């Protein structure tokens, strides 16, 4: 997944209140699916569905602890969402790429001295 799509997945996962509550619970420590179901007025399949979305977005991982499959919060995508500087860079870089194209047009419209000289020589 490229960075923008990964961020989209992160933010889409965060858009739902149940998923935010699950993350808030996991931020306190790992928990099994049944432990996660308890505080919610929701069925286990419904909670599992939300967990799948969180896992897909990379926000939650599944641990292996004997028979248990505890869910854990993953900090990296949340940190990536915080890397604003990259967005700032993109804002300007895309503008400057358009400026490169504009400068090419301007150079073509206003012949430089070398080009004028070359044209004179060619005559």
């Amino acid at each position, binding site marked *: 997944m490229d960075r923008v799509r990964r*961020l989209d997945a*992160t*933010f889409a996962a*965060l*858009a739902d209140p149940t998923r*935010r*509550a699950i*993350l*808030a*619970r996991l*931020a*306190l420590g790992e928990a099994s699916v049944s432990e996660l179901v308890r505080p919610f007025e929701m069925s286990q399949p419904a909670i599992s569905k939300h967990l799948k979305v969180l896992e897909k977005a990379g926000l939650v991982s599944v641990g292996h602890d004997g028979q248990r499959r505890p869910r854990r919060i993953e900090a990296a995508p*949340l940190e990536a*969402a*915080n890397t*604003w*500087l990259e*967005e*700032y*860079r*993109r*804002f*300007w*870089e*895309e*503008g*400057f790429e*358009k*400026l*490169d*194209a*504009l*400068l*090419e047009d*301007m*150079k073509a419209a*206003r012949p*430089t001295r070398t080009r004028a000289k070359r044209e004179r020589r060619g005559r």
Partner: protein
Amino acid sequence: MSNPQPLKIFPQGEREIVFTRGFDAPRALVFDAMTKPHLVERWMGPRGWNLVKCEIDLRVGGKYRYVGKRPNGPEMGWGGVFREIAPPDRLVCTEVFDDPWYPGECVITTTFEEKDGITLMTAVTEYVTREARDAVMKSPMESGVKDSYERLDEVLAGAAQGA
């Protein structure tokens, strides 16, 4: 199209952010492209973005104002006042956003050095405090990202409260 020197953005000292970028054109053209409204509106902002307002009164004490938006997106406006105009090598102006995410206005000193037909632009943006500078290094500029941040804040606030 050649890109002699890619964009670099980095903090400098306590209160500055520096942008450097090379352009394959003489600096007189780069200076014009950055200060004439009919040229600025052709490049300012990322892809898919348009300047819906671009006003530049290029004289010391004169103002400039830009408003940009994406199709169906919110508008983002900013502007400032020119403090020094020395074409083609130096331009100093202030900058403040309509919806600022850092305190105070900043001062941008842009210099253009030309070598073998390549112009190196260096723009030093000076903020009023270190906190303002650091806020810009970390904060979202586009509201889509800002909305997402608010959601992220909720998650983190919820976690802190032990929700």
